[in-house]
């Protein structure tokens, strides 16, 4: 669901964390809802291949 930035400022924000887990952990510890993505580099770490796949899909 899209939440415009101005609306976000009057709501209790809910987060998706992609990458360093500590960012999500510290928000969760502060009482905020966080969904952690189990991220790993796409296309086996080949950034050019990932970009190509993005274009094709």
């Amino acid at each position, binding site marked *: *669901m899209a939440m415009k*930035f101005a609306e976000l*400022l009057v709501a*209790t*924000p809910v*987060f*998706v964390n992609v*990458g360093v*887990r500590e960012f999500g952990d510290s928000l969760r510890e*502060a009482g905020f809802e966080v969904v952690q993505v189990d991220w790993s580099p796409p296309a086996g770490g080949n950034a050019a291949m990932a970009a190509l796949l993005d274009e094709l899909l």
Partner: protein
Amino acid sequence: MIKKTVVRKNRYFDSVFLMQVARRIAAEPGIKDASALLCTEANKKVLVELGYGEAGGDTEFASAGPNDLVLALEGEKSAVMAVAADPETRLQRPASSSVGTAREPRSLAEAAALSPRSGVAVISVPGEYAARESRAALREGLNVFLFSSNVSVADEISLKTEARQKGLIVMGPDCGTAFIGGAGIGFANAVRRGPVGIVGSSGTGIQEFSCMVHRAGCGISHAIGTGSRDLSDAIGGISTMTAIDALEADRDTKVIVVISKPPGQGATARLRERLARSSRPVVLCLLGAHRPVEPEQAAGGLNEASTIDEAVSLALQAPGVNGATRRPLDPEAARVEAALQVSRMRQGQRYVRGLFAGGTLCYQAQGIFRDAGLLVHSNSPIPGMRELEDPRTSRESSLVDMGAEIFVEGRSHPMIDASYRRKRLEEEGNDTSVALIILDFILGAISSRDPAGDLAETIRAVREAARRRGDHLCVVASVCGTEEDAQGLAAQTKKLLEAGALVFPSAAEAAVFAREIALKLNRRKEAR
């Protein structure tokens, strides 16, 4: 002693976790040094320079790629072999971590479907994937907090333009901190909510400002990071404009403060034009830019400050902001203390060295020195200062941003990992031409659990070594944080005082005091 690498194929971990793994292994008996890195070309090169890889004989290491993990181990043979025999135990996350609850989504789209009320994606993947993930977030209608750096200008423009069209914002790339709806994102301090809204392209600038507002008894409505390049002419302040619009519409924000490193000329003109028609009072703090002619003159509610401290004072005076006024440094007391310090220094001690964890605080200190006509060297010089040829070696008086790209490639930021700054502090402390060292300590989430403790022993040691050779080495420090931060402002300050540092309530005041000493050292030199 042996050196050995252990490669784990197709294992991705983030850099903060890998630093923790390396620390844990290094603390095992018999291990002298340990690194845990992804096998990027840059990391492999560093390890080869350190003597790993058996000059190409280690074929597993030689053929490893950026999606593989390498442990580089140095120590007694039995200890190294024990780690090599069981690396997986060392790669397990502690039970308190977020892993292991339910199955985690593998993509942003999956996460957004799972949590339809999500409003912000916090993204800290390696730079080459950051634009891709940000696009996925915008596609899901999410605002983006983008911590990653190394995103191209073209990608930044296209992401921010897309966000603006959708009524969303991209905070970043290279965004260190934000405070949205009471949530501190990234490197954030425990500050109360209140009437002061912040827009900032500089992470430590936002942190220092919000902590000072909190300590004055007031609070922050929202602090919106925009990324270090947002106010460059290439980007044109796209996120800054979105942030100002949002704060202006926010009922709880009574004053808007914009904090930035020196912006581009075109972007500055647009920013001033926008701020001049703001319906809220505005404080503009451009650190390192030349001091405005009349710094405190209000023109249509627009006030200008050249230090974070001035910005805090101006914000606290705005209508509707009920903050106590700050008591600034007493200039006379500072002059007396500076004279006392200089009187104890040997003639050969002539230079000031600043080792900053906060890039913005380095800019601010340069501005403070320049205001008194003092030229220094820096690896990120503001207009009028001299560029350090090699950021790893100071020249005369130097103010160094230790968070610059060259220092953090393959290792964590000095706010998290103090080891490189500690080594540099030793070098500067052992330089007999150095009279004074400036340090900043940044508390809060994500930062080291004990920033002052990380350097306290070294501060004590370099001062003691200076004393033994007949020098007096002055160490000047400031702590950016609040009592409510996990590290505790008072406890951190106490550690620095006990180590022999002079601790000031703000980075600007520490720099003003250091400047006082630098001026006295110059006069002493001229008098000879």
